[in-house]
């Protein structure tokens, strides 16, 4: 009875206190920011699932040690500085005076707790373990942390820029409790978690005591609207202030609308075709008469012919409506570790036919292409266009598109003995670290999950010269030398046609006039990068 009345009294006090706050919020309602996201998050737990939408949202609440600017160049965040003490040791100096949302001070203990939790979240569909494993973290003092590795590891700061730091108090909080907002200590970020409705929306409120200064928005609502035309319609109707992933078919129209702003930049995402490099007989390739034939994709000339038969400018111009750039490697020119020599393979149908004939397939063969639906911009149209181009080359091509979840499971491990199932697939890869070692390691290194190599090598491409060059690059601490070694590894794999890149996407945002979005190469839509004009 006593508790009941005190609670009642508290509630009354709260109501009285809340009344003026609500009026202020009402007056400042113009400061609310509503953002339309194109993908759904799978959790509010910053360490549950290493996937762009989750990482992007978590960045508002839980900050990493090292930040990435809009071009994915590293910048100080919770770590004020870092340096390599010797080949295998890094030292991070933490920012002082930073507080979590409830006022708890941030110290090295939180960093150590995070490193224990991040690689070990149960049932994680894609874990952060690759970024933490093999590193030994020690606390030197409250604001200094050392990282020790067995081999030289130049990418430690990059690795530590991929996930946020949680307070030590929440190290045993489950993913479900994170979703319910039960980690009340919160993060150190500019925003606090206010509401999360799975598959629908996330509401954030600003952290009044943020070390980096107060945010201009009184409230930020992220709505998850996966249908692109619906997202555009919601922006035009004024229900949203900002949308991400503007469909290419609407970019020109939105650019012409005086009431809207459009911001875009080249993406770190490459769209490419991966092919079967590891089976003598590939399941979706047959002779013209339907008989079983030796996998023609093992022949370099066939791979070159296929790459040459793809009209990249045609795809960019007609399907992507110029909102893309033809690709000749895994990251756009100018990114760290890319080659200056590699250019997009020129479209040459006759040259391709000649190569195919030289390889011993003057009459072509039958092949079925597979791809996901609604995963990448215009994915089904791209795969159909490429099927047209292969048909002209003389390859009888069929297309099967599958819902993303289904597609990726089968493309990675749908075959006999958990090997990739398909012969020729359309996929995309965004380099989360903003440099090429990430892509080369995941897509082209010889498949070896224990070493974290070739984790997404769905073609099981394997080339010893390339592997050796990549390992050499990964152990080079000197930036200029590593850049050159990675470029060389890129050249080896592209000249060997380990996979066929087609184009880099452009990331495009649209917002109403008065709101300006900072376009980012990593596709992240960050409220901290959205400002009033």
């Amino acid at each position: 009875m006593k508790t009941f009345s005190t609670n009642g009294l508290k509630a009354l006090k709260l109501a009285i206190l809340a009344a003026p706050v609500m009026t202020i919020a009402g007056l400042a309602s113009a400061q609310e920011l509503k953002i339309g996201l194109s993908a759904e998050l799978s959790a509010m737990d910053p360490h549950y699932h290493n996937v762009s939408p989750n990482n992007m949202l978590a960045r508002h609440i839980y900050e990493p040690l090292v930040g990435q600017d809009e071009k994915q160049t590293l910048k100080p965040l919770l770590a004020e500085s870092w340096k390599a003490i010797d080949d295998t040791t890094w030292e991070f100096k933490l920012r002082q005076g930073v507080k979590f949302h409830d006022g708890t001070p941030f110290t090295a203990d939180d960093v150590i707790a995070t490193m224990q939790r991040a690689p070990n979240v149960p049932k994680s569909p894609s874990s952060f373990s690759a970024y933490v494993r093999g590193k030994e973290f020690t606390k030197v003092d409250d604001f200094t942390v050392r990282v020790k590795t067995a081999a030289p590891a130049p990418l430690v700061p990059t690795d530590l820029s991929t996930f946020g730091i949680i307070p030590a108090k929440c190290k045993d909080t489950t993913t479900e409790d994170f979703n319910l907002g039960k980690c009340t200590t919160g993060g150190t970020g500019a925003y606090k978690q206010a509401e999360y409705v799975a598959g629908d929306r996330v509401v954030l409120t600003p952290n009044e005591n943020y070390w980096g200064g107060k945010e201009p928005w009184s409230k930020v609502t992220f709505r998850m609207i996966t249908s692109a035309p619906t997202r555009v319609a919601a922006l035009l109707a004024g229900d949203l202030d900002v949308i991400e992933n503007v469909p290419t078919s609407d970019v020109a129209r939105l650019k012409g609308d005086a009431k809207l702003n459009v911001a875009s930049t080249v993406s770190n995402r490459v769209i490419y075709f991966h092919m079967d490099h590891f089976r003598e007989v590939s399941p979706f390739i047959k002779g013209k008469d339907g008989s079983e034939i030796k996998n023609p994709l093992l022949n370099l000339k066939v791979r070159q012919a296929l790459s040459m038969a793809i009209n990249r400018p045609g795809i960019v111009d007609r399907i992507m409506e110029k909102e893309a750039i033809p690709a000749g490697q895994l990251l756009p020119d100018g990114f760290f570790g890319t080659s200056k020599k590699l250019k997009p393979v020129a479209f040459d149908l006759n040259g391709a036919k000649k190569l195919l004939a030289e390889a011993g397939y003057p009459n072509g063969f039958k092949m079925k292409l597979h791809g996901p639906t609604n995963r990448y911009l215009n994915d089904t149209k791209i795969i159909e266009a490429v099927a047209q181009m292969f048909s002209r080359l003389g390859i009888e091509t069929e297309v099967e598109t599958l819902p993303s979840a289904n597609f990726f499971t089968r493309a990675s491990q749908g075959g006999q003995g958990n090997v990739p199932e398909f012969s020729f697939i359309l996929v995309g890869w965004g380099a989360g670290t903003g440099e090429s070692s990430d892509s080369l390691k995941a897509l082209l290194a010889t498949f070896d999950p224990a070493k974290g190599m070739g984790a997404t090598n769905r073609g099981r491409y394997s080339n010893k010269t390339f592997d050796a060059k990549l390992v050499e690059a990964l152990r080079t601490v000197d930036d200029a030398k590593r850049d050159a070694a990675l470029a060389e590894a890129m050249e080896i794999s592209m000249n060997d046609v380990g996979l066929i890149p087609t184009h880099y996407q452009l990331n495009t945002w649209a917002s109403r006039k008065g709101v300006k979005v900072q376009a980012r190469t990593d596709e992240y839509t960050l409220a901290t990068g959205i400002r009033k004009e």
Partner: protein
Amino acid sequence: MSDTALPAAATTPPAAPAKEETPFRRFVRSFVEDRLALFGLALFLLIVLLAIAAPLIAPQNPYDLASVDVMDSRQPPGAVSGEGFTMWLGSDGVGRDLLSGILYGLRISLMVGAFSGILAATIGAAIGLIAAYNGGRTETIIMRLVDLQLSLPSVLVALILVAALGKGVDKIIIALVMVQWAYYARTVRGSALVERRKEYVEAAQSLGLSHARTVFRHILPNCLAPVIVIVTVQTAHAISLEATLSFLGVGLPQTEPSLGVLIANGFQYMLSGSYWISVFPGFALLMTIVSINLVGDRLRDVLNPRLEK
């Protein structure tokens, strides 16, 4: 042969058909009384004709990837393609001539509608007859199954079935049959229950005819009128259901588009001004369904004894 045929022709007085018309003639006469239904029938026959003749009249084979060029994509109606023919209805996002796409799409839609309609009618009617004739536990089990089936939304059931079976015309037909058989079963059972108590059935039974013969030669023909009406309505429904499934991306493959796939492909461009990609296939779908429904409505009026003058 001629011996039997000749006297038959000779004994029939020329005036007789006018006085005592055959049931079929009466049916045709009362059907054509309604101009709208006649228009529907003419439109439907035209659509069927166009669909059958598609390979002869379409400027392009939209299923042959080598003849479709992405460089022709999103051309407005009347533009000339890279191969030199005029695309009267424009082209879609991957350069497919829409007129050809629609003609070939109609073939798929009509085929899916007809096959699933006939199959579902056959299976459903057989099950309904068995339920009505046997009665007892068989009837209870079958009819509860029918109730269960009818209580589930058909789009949802079809969606799950197609997702499980995979893409392709044959799989769509299987899914549609499984969604639609219950309508026939219920209707046929209703009619058959009434017919079963009639004297001609008792007569047939007392003559010692087998159950199968009684059911299929005597009861079934008297239950057919409502089935014919439902076939038309359900065929139209099957066509739109196929379009819905294809629109949702689980129906037919991208490279062999039905009307639903064509509409779905154009949906993305609706806001950006390329209206023709969705609108023309949508119009073709609308006309097909309207024509079948007009015919179906009139059939219902003509075949319903209660509405007879």
